[in-house]
């Protein structure tokens, strides 16, 4: 009897968000294939997967979830904020962890309330915080932000609105003016948004977009002559599909980066060697190592490592249940050494989670498009715990009150 650890993969390879969803999904799948090919699975447990197309639509996402959860799902990565919201309630009953790396609810960082959610490596609050810090650094200090105008051009959905509480908080602290300009999903018509930008002439534009909205925004910025150097995107607005067909026009545009891009890291080389060389690659070869692809790898790697971590406690070489995987996710401890061993050196910072902190790392860098590729243009930034922590706590408490949830006991944290 073969032992198999099953990963359901919620993806979208069709619809308006397909260009961004596809490399992400390919990364996840290739990593699984690679681990199976290179290591023979996780301590001998083969990894299996099944993809389900959501088209970024919540109802289809829920359908996929319901379909795949019964097959012994280890965890879900819904790849969409809307689906995340819909599943957050369901996973509590089904006892399946929900990994939302770099997206999802900011408050779910608080593992004391959100037992099953894992917004690993960052939320929109950390992202917004890092961007403001970066701008302050550029201006030469937080005090220099006073009187400055910062426009938030955002996808008009919970995804786009999520950073607002933090930005409002920062606005109060530093006295800059925050201008909120919504863009109706999916974001193909942005003329009036950019007319407003032109009218207000902000010093910086924060771009909170996804999919076609990003490239359209860059084109409109070009068309209205807004300097791309002053535009800063969230990490979902900083990948190749966002700038590729804008080309030169996007030169100078900045965005947050959770990870590197490029084919240098060892893990990428392994994928090329163990998967693509055998003709089993999921997508085109030259896309391997792109920003979103690499993010897909990381997400899958963290999932695999969570299983490995769980095996350390619950039995090596065994298939882990979703509950056990959850424990693994909550007790991740990937230090630099471990990352190097995994072939991820330089790709991301070490990450370690705990019962109270489901994020594990609040670091990111800024990278800038030079017309052909992304180059890092800042040091590692870290979100300010002082600001973040209380906000997360308040939001989580509110959620717990609404849902009549109890904060987890220390004993529960041990289990």
């Amino acid at each position: 009897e073969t032992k198999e650890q099953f990963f359901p993969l919620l993806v979208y390879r069709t619809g308006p968000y397909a260009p961004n969803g596809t490399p992400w999904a390919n990364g996840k799948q290739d990593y699984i294939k690679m681990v199976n090919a290179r290591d023979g699975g996780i301590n001998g447990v083969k990894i299996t997967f099944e993809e389900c197309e959501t088209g970024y639509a919540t109802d289809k996402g829920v359908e996929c979830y319901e379909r795949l959860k019964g097959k012994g799902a280890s965890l879900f990565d819904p790849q969409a904020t809307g689906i995340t919201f819909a599943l957050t309630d369901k996973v509590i009953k089904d006892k399946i962890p929900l990994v939302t790396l770099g997206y999802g609810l900011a408050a779910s960082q608080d593992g004391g309330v959100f037992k099953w959610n894992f917004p690993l490596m960052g939320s929109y609050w950390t992202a917004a915080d890092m961007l403001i810090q970066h701008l302050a650094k550029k201006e030469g200090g937080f005090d220099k932000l006073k009187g400055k105008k910062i426009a938030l051009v955002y996808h008009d959905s919970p995804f786009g609105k999520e950073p607002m509480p933090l930005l409002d908080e920062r606005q109060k602290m530093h006295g800059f003016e925050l201008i909120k300009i919504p863009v109706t999903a999916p974001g193909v018509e942005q003329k009036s948004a950019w007319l407003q930008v032109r009218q207000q002439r902000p010093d910086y534009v924060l771009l909170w977009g996804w999919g076609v909205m990003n490239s359209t925004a860059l084109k409109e910025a070009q068309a209205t002559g807004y300097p791309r150097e002053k535009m800063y995107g969230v990490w979902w607005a900083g990948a190749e599909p966002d700038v590729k067909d804008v080309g030169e026009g996007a030169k100078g545009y900045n965005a947050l980066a959770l990870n590197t891009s490029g084919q240098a890291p060892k893990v990428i080389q392994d994928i090329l060697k163990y998967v693509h060389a055998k003709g089993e690659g999921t997508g085109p070869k030259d896309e391997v190592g792109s920003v979103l692809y690499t993010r897909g790898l990381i997400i899958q790697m963290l999932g695999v490592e969570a299983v490995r971590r769980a095996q350390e406690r619950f039995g090596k070489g065994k298939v882990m249940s979703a509950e056990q995987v959850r424990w693994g996710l909550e007790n991740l401890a990937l230090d630099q050494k471990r990352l190097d061993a995994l072939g991820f050196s330089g790709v991301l910072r070490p990450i370690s989670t705990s019962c109270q902190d489901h994020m594990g790392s609040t670091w990111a860098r800024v990278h800038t498009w030079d017309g052909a590729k992304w180059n890092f243009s800042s040091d590692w930034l870290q979100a300010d715990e002082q600001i973040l922590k209380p906000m997360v706590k308040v939001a989580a408490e509110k959620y717990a009150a609404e849902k009549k949830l109890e904060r987890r006991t220390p004993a529960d944290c041990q289990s």
Partner: protein
Amino acid sequence: MGFLIETIFGGLMTGMLYSLIALGFVLIYKASGVFNFAQGAMVLFAALAMARFTEWIPQWTGLTQPLLVNGLGFLAACAVMVLVAWLIERLVLSKLVNQEGITLLMATIGVTYLMEGLGQTLFGSDIYKIDVGMPKDPIFLFEKTFEGGVLVNKEDLYAALIAAAMVALLALFFQKTATGRALRAVADDHQAAQSIGIPLSRIWVIVWAVAGFVALVAGVIWGSKLGVQFSLSLVALKALPVVILGGLTSVPGAIIGGLVIGVGEKVSEVYLGPLMGGGIEIWFAYVLALLFLLVRPQGLFGEKIIDRV
């Protein structure tokens, strides 16, 4: 003041682009009484064809001269759209002669799914580029009169000119000619048109091919603005209030409707939007259309709705 002019100008440009898509709807509605839901899918399909052909042609033939490649790509995409028109007539419309409008509308929804699936299977679902050499950078007018000048987007300007030319051409072509009359007859009553010998199939192939051509032009313009991928089919939604405001049966109506909606939504968003939290342009366009319709229920230039006993 300068900014108001700029806003209005921007609205006019966008409006013109909406008109171009609206035109596709009007053509088909006028000629067959079908509200063609698939217009958006046709825009996507045509743009995908164009984008991929311009990519493939250099690979197949070794040609690199951009003008030539674009020209050949355009022709190839045209041919594809004619083929599509022919297939739609053969497989769908000819089987649904004399059915109610709503049935035909539903059939075009089936066509939408088919074309979206087929288009992305044949041509891929990544982002592709159409580069017909449209200038991307802005120009500034009246810099002396107003502070900061009035910004005009050159690409938009060209696009609007092309759209206007197309619309004028089609208006001329369809007005007063015998073909135009036959088209209107078909729209009124399929069966009666058949009974006097109007060959429905030929007429429909022609009209759908022309609509395919319009979709191609719209696809090239929008595609070079937005990049070619699935979202392109969604811009059709923006043309909906335009056609209805202008009147489903009126080619000039499509233009005027486009301009009204374009200007209305930009001005409202820029001036009223901030007061109301932003994002109002979408519903504002519809409310605007609605107000017009309350005065003229058949749209600005549409044919009067006949109800008589």
